[in-house]
């Protein structure tokens, strides 16, 4: 009997969200197929790769990252260098220095950094907060205001602060806004619902549904992303038809496999190789589970994942 190919068709589509301005602007999402199922239909826009830098510089970074940014003294210089990285589609600036339990930099200082970085590059910019809900409610609002016209993606509005962050980034200052939940499908959906009820256009929302480093309960990440794409495409659930962005590096570079020095764990071999491996494996798994964009740090990871996307898409 001859093989009879039956494409899996959906009457629904993930929304395409544009980030950045000008020639280098990117679109993520737009597909009406499962991840990389290009044999079934249109992938829309290929998944995108972002390079993460931090207002804290290269604190704790491995040698390969340090040497890549050699000579850079400011975040703006690092951003330029990050934008040149092979495989980079956008730059992600983490304002982790704002954490009140860490460096506790002022909002003004961090907004100035964000402004410098945004002015230094023509690649689209994603700005990540410091993860402290209260500080981010103020910080991300000011960032959204200061970067008007740049069409940045602000990460992220959470259950506790979506009104402040969502209203500022998504409504008042016309940026794109991330909706962050931590591997919780019901909350992911709820956040999209309340953000749109707030008046934020669905085309302005990108989901960060969370990830774990591979080996750290990762199967929940897969089932979360699977269920979201299934609801969005197979059940035509419009509240979940937003693309997904996944900050991978911040997860994978903080687990022991990526932190333990070779001197402390000689049987594990090179720390840098381990760290790259964790970053690549997690990013690859996120992408095939449904992420439309990943945020990475190491040049080798960025190049490898960009190549993987190119060859699969």
């Amino acid at each position, binding site marked *: 009997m001859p093989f009879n190919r039956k494409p899996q068709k959906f009457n629904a589509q993930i929304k395409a969200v544009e980030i950045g301005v000008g020639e280098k602007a990117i679109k993520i999402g737009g597909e009406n197929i499962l991840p990389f199922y290009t044999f079934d239909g249109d992938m829309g826009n290929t998944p995108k790769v972002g390079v993460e830098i931090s207002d804290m510089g290269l604190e704790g970074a491995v040698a390969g990252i340090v040497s890549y940014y050699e000579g850079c003294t400011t975040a703006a210089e690092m951003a330029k260098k990050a934008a040149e990285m092979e495989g980079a589609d956008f730059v992600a600036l983490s304002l982790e220095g704002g954490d009140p339990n860490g460096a506790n930099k002022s909002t003004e200082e961090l907004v100035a950094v964000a402004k410098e970085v945004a002015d230094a590059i023509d690649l689209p910019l994603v700005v990540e907060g410091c993860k402290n809900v209260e500080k981010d409610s103020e910080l991300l609002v000011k960032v959204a205001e200061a970067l008007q016209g740049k069409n940045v993606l602000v990460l992220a509005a959470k259950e506790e602060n979506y009104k402040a962050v969502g209203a500022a980034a998504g409504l008042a200052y016309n940026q794109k806004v991330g909706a962050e939940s931590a591997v919780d499908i019901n909350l992911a*959906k709820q956040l999209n619902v309340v953000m749109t009820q707030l008046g934020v256009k669905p085309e302005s929302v990108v989901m960060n549904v969370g990830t774990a480093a591979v080996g750290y309960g990762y199967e929940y990440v897969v089932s979360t992303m699977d269920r979201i794409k299934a609801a969005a495409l197979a*059940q035509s659930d419009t509240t979940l038809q937003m693309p997904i962005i996944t900050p991978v590096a911040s997860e994978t570079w903080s687990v022991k496999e990526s932190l333990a020095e070779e001197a402390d764990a000689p049987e594990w071999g090179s720390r840098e190789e381990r760290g790259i491996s964790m970053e690549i494996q997690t990013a690859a798994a996120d992408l095939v589970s449904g992420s439309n964009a990943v945020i990475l740090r190491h040049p080798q990871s960025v190049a490898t994942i960009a190549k993987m996307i190119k060859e699969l898409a």
Partner: protein
Amino acid sequence: MSKFIVIGERISVTAPSINRAFAEKDPEPILTRAKQQLDAGAYYLDVNIGPAESNGEELMKWAVELLQGEFDNVPLALDTANMKAIEAGISVYNRSKGKPIVNSADAAGRIEYVDLAAANDAIVIALCNGEGIAKDNDERMMYCQTLLERGMEHGMEATDLWFDPLFLVTKGMQDKQMDILECIKMFSDMGLNSTGGLSNNSNGMPKHIRPIMDSAMVAMAMMQGLTSAIVNPNDLRLMETIKSCDIIKNNTLYADSYLEL
């Protein structure tokens, strides 16, 4: 599984205001009811223009264009005894939100409605009835087979026939209610879609009882595999029940605001 499909029943000549609106081609009462139903969660709207023997074709075209033009190509069930009027409606129908539904065929005098749906790539509501009400499920399933075969012969997908067991009034036919529910299970076990005028079960009951009875019926019927119903979506209790059953069946993903969606 996909979401339960609510077909709003309120655009019907049985309502005096709508009857008059069709007679006078007055859009306002029709659009008002359409909006109320869509806001409440209807997906399809039933458009019952009555027998419409004289001007059915023109009237159905007018209604289809009016509703689809105003409400982003809302999918419609075209409901009339005038077959030509249904065909005329389909000729101007936009399918981007769903195929038109032909309402309805049965296994006796109205079996040609299946052919009509097949010829126009439409969905058809297939009432498992012959002449008079089926006496038991053997008879219902015989009609089901007849209708299914008729559709398949004409090249339809089995899923485009939505089988209607014919909901019966509880006051007077209380002993038949479980038969109806078992019939729905048989459709479901065959992988078939189903629908029907579910609120018929509460006909003649006091007004405050009907939403309760209809909600209980829809929950039990959804448990049996009912995939759609022709109902009044402005019955809040009924819609809350349907949305909750969709959650329990995993037809929609839960979120705290699910009742508002």
